[in-house]
């Protein structure tokens, strides 16, 4: 079956992201569920969302009660741009884990990306009312504010950063801003991620993307170069750097640079 073909992990199809050395908080070579979860998290920190999704699935094969695995799957589907699938998967997961706040937040984020903002708001608020706290719930609430052009989104994202000091949180906030076409705000969050974890090449890559989208080509070039220093085989960074070097003068980019977006 084609679906199971994707579970061939040895073939790192997203290996273009560069070095596969550990970046996350923990190193694990175990093949139990926690080991797969660690691997999934590790790939997530490299931006290898396809691989991370497979690892979450492998962890869930061993232990279906791992809520973090279900949440991770939904988050990966969203990061891969498969919003209807993420919505469907979060809905099915919520049938198993009723009232689970992060899954509700995941569904809210998927609905928001699809465009059903009204239902997404209800779900995001319901997720915040659930027991416990997590950075992801605040991130989703913040994204809904961003999509509604509400200026108080910053407070939600600050709450998310306070809830979890991991550098991945500001980085994924930067990705949210980028998705909604606000590169200047994204750049601030990406810098926050880089400051927290200067050894993470993926943070440098996203910072470069934000700077490039803002028209700050020189800074973007520096970020990509730093990314390549940390991960010399990183193909995305190489390609973007080459694009930057080969591109000519652009009026639109000049204007963006002037207005700081």
């Amino acid at each position: 079956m084609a679906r199971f073909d994707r579970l061939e992990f040895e073939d790192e199809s997203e290996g273009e992201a560069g070095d596969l050395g550990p970046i996350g908080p923990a190193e694990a070579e175990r093949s139990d569920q926690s080991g797969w979860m660690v691997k999934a998290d590790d790939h997530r920190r490299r931006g290898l969302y396809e691989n991370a999704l497979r690892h979450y699935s492998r962890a869930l094969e061993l232990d279906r009660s791992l809520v973090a695995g279900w949440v991770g799957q939904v988050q990966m589907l969203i990061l891969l741009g498969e919003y209807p699938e993420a919505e469907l998967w979060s809905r099915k997961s919520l049938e198993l884990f009723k009232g689970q706040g992060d899954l509700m937040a995941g569904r809210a984020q998927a609905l928001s990306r699809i465009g059903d903002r009204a239902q997404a708001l209800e779900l995001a608020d319901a997720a915040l009312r659930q027991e416990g706290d997590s950075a992801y719930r605040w991130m989703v609430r913040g994204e809904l504010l961003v999509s509604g052009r509400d200026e108080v989104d910053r407070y939600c994202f600050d709450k998310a950063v306070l809830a979890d000091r991991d550098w991945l949180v500001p980085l994924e906030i930067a990705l949210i801003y980028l998705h909604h076409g606000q590169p200047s705000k994204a750049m601030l969050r990406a810098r926050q991620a880089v400051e927290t974890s200067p050894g993470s090449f993926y943070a440098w890559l996203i910072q470069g993307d934000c700077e490039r989208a803002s028209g700050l080509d020189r800074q973007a070039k520096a970020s990509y170069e730093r990314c390549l220093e940390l991960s010399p085989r990183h193909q995305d960074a190489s390609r973007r750097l080459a694009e930057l070097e080969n591109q000519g003068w652009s009026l639109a980019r000049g204007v963006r640079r002037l207005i700081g977006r």
Partner: protein
Amino acid sequence: MQCPSCRFENMPGLESCGRCGTSLALATAAIDVHPPRASRVSKRVRRAVPGRLLYRARDAAIEAWRTITSSIIEDSRIPLPEPGILSRLIVPGWAHLHAGLRVRGWSFLVAYLFLLLLALTRWGTSMGSIAAGLAFSVHASSVMDVLIRQGTVRFPRMMAMALMVSLVLAALFYAPAGWVLSYGIAVPIVYAHNAPPFDRDDVVLINRWAYALTSPRRGDVVQFRPTSAGRIVDPNLQALHVRWVYEQTMLIDRVVGLPGDRVVWDGGKLTIDGAPVAWAPLIPGRLPPRLEIDVPTDCYLILPTTSVGAANAAGVESYWKTAGLIPGDDILGVAYLRVAPITRWWLIR
């Protein structure tokens, strides 16, 4: 059964964990842990189709609908009076009289009855239509007057109330009554030119339901569809208003004989089966001096003396023997009242 998530020991038979709410099916049922994936085609389609815009349009439509419905409901909420008053709103002024407002009550009642009488007696004329409209307005005004007295109302709400009262009154009373009059018991026929014994602008009322349960009787003045021999339509009129053609294709005259009668017209006197009768067709002068007709069992004898053909073929006996025999289905109703001009307002006999 132990919860696979929190390890809480639940009672057997439960579907979800009593502590954390996790589905206990997780422990037993086969659950697919591989999420569905989007194909390349579906990704391309999603990029091409602006699904976000569809949701935005839906949200905007829902918001607009909520705003409109809430304002309409708010503005059209009518404070209803007590049942004793409410039931008397059926007659203008009655509710006022019941509540002790004598001047207003009598004013509404008298004005309404006057206008209603005028509308009925002048039905089919312009005056009748205006009077009917005014009677309706007086009725609606009397209802509004009672409702407004229930509490202070703002202008938009008053407009909504007026609209609703008018709709309710029209639906309950005036539309059904107008339909019964216009298509049943008082169908107005307006003459556009002289057609003796009727003149131009005469309005005659026809009761189309007169023969719903009974059959035509001798001496009834009826509207009927003439036979092909009696139907002479002026081609110049055909190109004009349909009402003019109508006058030539629908005639009004008296039923002279019933099926099976032997009718004899001799020297201005009419006998049926040997018995003399006091009445005659509407224009007896157009008939020949002597005429004997045996009415077939499937026809009525209605001599079309008011038709254009009768004026041209007055002395031709064969014309009357063919044009006067009218099948029962071609008799449309009783012509019973001339309402215009006002100087000739009277029953048609």
